[in-house]
């Protein structure tokens, strides 16, 4: 699968055909999701309407972790198999991941003030997600820190792999330590602790977020492929090499 798509020409061919459907699904899930999250779904028995922040906060947190895992996996492929397309996809994904991380942190802060009584606390969950934000930032900075791009992507890939340990720490932080943040509502031993009328909009929003992320990722990979071609053309004195 990866080898099949790693050829830039084939990647463009396949994604061009799939893009309209993906974008359509993103729009569909997001619009149904927003309507059911903000209008159809009931308020919470304790939190009232404030619970609606969850429908943005939780999917963004998932996306932040998904995309970081994607970066870690592609970085490993890039390091081990020396495949330039793997590094390129990791680079393309990083700004998307950091955007979801920022969305997660800000919506969490806006939720924390009315419910907990504080915008921010230094508990294990919040601190580890903030650390994830800095990992993304470091990955993006390191990619551009060298004159030779291949050295930059190599160092960034190593950082991404080392930082991957933070992902399980984020997930289990609420179980390992006392935190102000609630424990997991969904992936837990006794099944979801969210009523189905709230679970459906949550999943719709998550699907919408996934399709949006795929669309942006594909577009960014295309742009980076073109950029790389331009760079190669400059080096070769304007001659186009395929």
């Amino acid at each position, binding site marked *: 699968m990866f080898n099949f798509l790693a050829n830039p020409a084939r990647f463009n061919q396949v994604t061009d055909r799939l893009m309209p459907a993906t974008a359509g699904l993103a729009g569909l899930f997001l619009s149904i999701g927003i309507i059911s999250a903000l209008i159809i779904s009931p308020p919470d028995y*304790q939190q009232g309407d404030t619970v609606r922040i969850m429908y943005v906060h939780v999917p963004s947190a998932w996306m932040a972790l998904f995309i970081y895992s994607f970066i870690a996996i592609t970085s490993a492929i890039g390091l081990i198999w020396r495949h330039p397309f793997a590094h390129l996809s990791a680079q393309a994904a990083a700004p998307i991941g950091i955007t979801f991380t920022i969305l997660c942190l800000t919506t969490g802060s806006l939720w924390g003030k009315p419910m907990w009584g*504080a915008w921010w606390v230094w508990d294990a969950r919040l601190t580890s997600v903030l650390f994830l934000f800095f990992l993304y930032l470091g990955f993006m900075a390191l990619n551009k820190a060298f004159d030779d791009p291949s050295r930059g992507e190599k160092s960034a890939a190593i950082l991404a792999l080392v930082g991957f340990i933070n992902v399980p720490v984020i997930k289990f932080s609420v179980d390992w330590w006392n935190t102000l943040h609630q424990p997991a509502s969904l992936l837990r031993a006794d099944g979801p602790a969210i009523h189905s009328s709230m679970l459906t909009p949550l999943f719709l929003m998550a699907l919408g977020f996934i399709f949006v992320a795929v669309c942006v990722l594909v577009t960014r990979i295309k742009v980076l492929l073109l950029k790389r071609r331009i760079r190669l053309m400059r080096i070769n004195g304007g001659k186009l090499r395929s």
Partner: protein
Amino acid sequence: MQLTGKQQRLTIVLLGLILCSIATAMILAALKDSVVYFYSPTNLLEKQTIPERRVRVGGLVKKNEQIYTKTGVVNLFIVTDKKNDITVRFTGILPDLFREGQGVVAEGKIGPNGVFFADEVLAKHDENYMPPEVAETLRRSSKSKTGEPR
């Protein structure tokens, strides 16, 4: 056995990941006490903390009593982890979610008489989400089973 370049890099990446995880696990285990956001009343009693050190204590609110004084309303409530209790004294506005049975985290110092003087109280909500009607049905069914309100 001669490893190819690819196998060599795979081994290095895997070994690196394993070593980094071990290092992280050791660091986090060593920092266990400072990573926890709050202590339970039992932890706090075991620790015999220095009276002047600021700590956070968390648990469920057992009983809340308000005392009206000249300077304002003083809240005296009991925080419990179902093993041990601690009395918390707090002057100020409590968060909206504050009620009996709710999880809270109080930040402050332990007074000489064992009372916890809090200057900040945060509410902690749990992982359960449901519409009010469902909560009402649950409350009723548990009441009819045990014969007393929760």
